[in-house]
């Protein structure tokens, strides 16, 4: 066990996979010589060589397309898209090629590609470095979508994703790289060394996709969330003294419906929370499932906490970011007389 932040945990996962499996290659902008803009691949090119850890041109479409070609020919590429905000040039390759190869070839070919990409706000990154586009990818059949909320999960989920024979888009909430963030920007930053999930096994381990983590068990309301909002939800519920059950989905596709349904059936109340914009957000899917599976157990309308339906702003970031105040408002509503 070692104290790791999420960058170190991800670095450890890739290090281990490069060492264990010669088919694993890393590729991306500035990931090799420079070690990645967030230092996630620091030292790996030096350790495994330029043919294993590849610096690419600034061309996301090309990065994804090249990864697809490598994967169908036997490699396990781990491609980094420097910011999720830049993933769209590769989107056609992801939707039209990567997601469908197994289907299109009737199983003759498959594409074990992992696309790592930092997402989310809270770093004063403005519209081009703060987006949370995960729902767009959950809508594409054939892609798995993962988003960890802590170093321990990040490492285990990344190893599982790399070993998965199907494409995974692996979102890394960049505000959580260096420490858990409860949504309050005025508090001093907290390092992962203060958090139990900052304790990371240095060796190889996997966390299955499609298995949510119950971060906090509770009886009164289920807060279904993922990524940065896990920590915001924990803080808001504690501040409100609400006995909330907080579920960290960890992967959106596949989705751990069983854990969600069991929780909401237990509590009768539900909030879904994500940083991404509200309209057609992943919360809408969660809400639909809860409604379908738990309708007769619901005490109150399901609440959604999400970003506003605007592009991520340059200014007023903390008015936009769905912080504790918005979670508390939802808690107040959902815990009202029923």
């Amino acid at each position, binding site marked *: 066990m070692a104290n790791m932040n999420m960058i170190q945990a991800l670095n450890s996962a890739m290090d281990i996979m490069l060492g264990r499996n010669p088919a694993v290659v890393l590729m991306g902008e500035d990931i090799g010589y420079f070690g990645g803009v967030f230092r996630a691949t620091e030292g790996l090119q030096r350790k495994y060589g330029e043919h294993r850890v590849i610096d690419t041109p600034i061309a996301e479409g090309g990065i994804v397309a090249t990864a697809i070609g490598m994967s169908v020919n036997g490699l396990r590429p781990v491609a980094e898209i420097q910011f999720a905000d830049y993933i769209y040039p590769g989107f056609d390759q992801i939707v039209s090629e990567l997601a469908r190869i197994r289907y299109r070839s009737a199983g003759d070919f498959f594409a074990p590609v992992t696309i790592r990409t930092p997402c989310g706000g809270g770093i004063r990154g403005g519209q081009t470095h703060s987006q949370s586009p995960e729902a767009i990818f959950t809508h594409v059949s054939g892609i798995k979508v993962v988003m960890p909320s802590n170093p321990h999960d990040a490492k285990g989920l990344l190893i599982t994703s790399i070993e998965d024979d199907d494409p995974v888009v692996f979102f890394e909430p960049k505000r959580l790289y260096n420490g858990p963030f409860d949504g309050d920007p005025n508090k001093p930053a907290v390092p992962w060394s203060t958090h139990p999930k900052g304790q990371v096994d240095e060796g190889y381990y996997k966390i299955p996709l499609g298995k949510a983590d119950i971060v906090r068990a509770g009886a009164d309301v289920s807060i279904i969330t993922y990524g940065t909002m896990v920590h915001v939800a924990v803080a808001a519920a504690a501040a409100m003294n609400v006995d909330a059950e907080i579920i960290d989905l960890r992967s959106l596709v596949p989705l751990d419906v069983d854990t969600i349904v069991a929780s909401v059936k237990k509590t009768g109340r539900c909030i879904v929370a994500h940083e991404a914009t509200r309209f057609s957000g992943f919360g809408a899917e969660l809400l639909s499932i809860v409604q379908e599976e738990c*309708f*007769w*157990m*619901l*005490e*109150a309308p399901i609440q959604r906490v999400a970003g506003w339906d605007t592009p991520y702003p340059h200014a007023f970031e903390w008015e936009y970011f769905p912080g504790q105040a918005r979670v508390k408002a939802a808690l107040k509503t959902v815990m*009202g*007389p*029923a």
Partner: protein
Amino acid sequence: MSQFTFKMPDLGEGTVDAEIVAWHTKPGDVVSEDQLIVEVMTDKAAVEVPAPVSGRVVSVTGAPGDKVAVGSPLIVFELTDGAAAPAMAAAPAPTIPAAATPTAPAATAAPATRATATLTASAATAPTPAAVPIARQGRVMTSPANRRRAREAGIDLTTVAGSGPGGRILRADLQTAAPRQAVADAADTTEIKVIGLRRLIAERMSEAKRNIPHFAYVEEVDVTELESLRMHLNHSRPKDSGSLSYLPLVVMALTRVLESFPQCNVLYDAARGVLIRHRAVHVGIATQTPDGLKVPVVRNAQALGLWEVAAEIRRLAERARANKATREELIGSTITVTSLGKLGGIASTPIINAPEVAIIGLNKAVERPVVYQGTVAVRRIMNLSSSFDHRFVDGYDAAAMIQALKERLEHPATIFIPTVKSP
């Protein structure tokens, strides 16, 4: 085109008013002569009143339960002349003084007028709508979980008052509603107007019980021999006769006994302060009918034979139950016998059918072990539970009368032997 006002007819001797039981027509209807238009109730008899003419009903007076005096307008017809076209027959509003009748004119004119007339007409025929619980408007507001709880607990959410925002039903409301609901099923009420025969029964019962100091007297009668006579007669009865019950035998015995107890075969005229002793014995037979208790009368029972009494009781009971008994068949009794047959129980306290002064009740005849001629024997025993108007019948006389009746019933041959007049 002319109007005809049909007044409440005199439906029987001394009738001053009659109660509307049910209308079979309403303003706007076209009726033909002799068609049933209204049912009314006099003292005891229900009377079906036919239309005296053919025509269109313009207005009716009185709602079910209302009493209408004899001679006052009951229904106004507009006579249809052969040439009168429907459009012409439509009476324009001004021809009917607004205050004269409670209903609007019959309308076959403009649709709007017709609609108005229909509404008014229904309001007139049902001026006092029953208090129906008003269902909550629209959907009940509550959570799905509460809907499930209500369903599982068998709670009708429309009956639950919501204490939440905007009247939303909360779980707490449901919890307080749940126990109430179990009782509320019992309190799920239906209102039945006390009208017609039921009102008459109610009034008479209250009046009799309030005014008459009842003296109740119960005696047991060994009817073993009466039973064996009854069985014998039933086995050998005329083909067209129904089987005998105890009732005609008791009536027969009673007529004999009353010859010696004329003070029990009496009607009390309170207005004049006179007791009217009757030589004839007109025996009222308390009869349960679908409408309620009726007391048809076996006239001159003292002059009838056993089979005649039995046949008359049967005939009257059938007519009373079919609501066909005439007013004459339902009035004029001088003493009443009441029997609940198998439901007779061991004792009862019958209420006197005023202005009579006595009522004889038959309880259930059952075999019992009794001491009979020095040993315990199984004998058939029937109790007589009777009430007397203690103002006019002393306890001694009442007891003596019942003992005389017991004597006859225990020695059935004496029922058929004329009373020996004491010198």
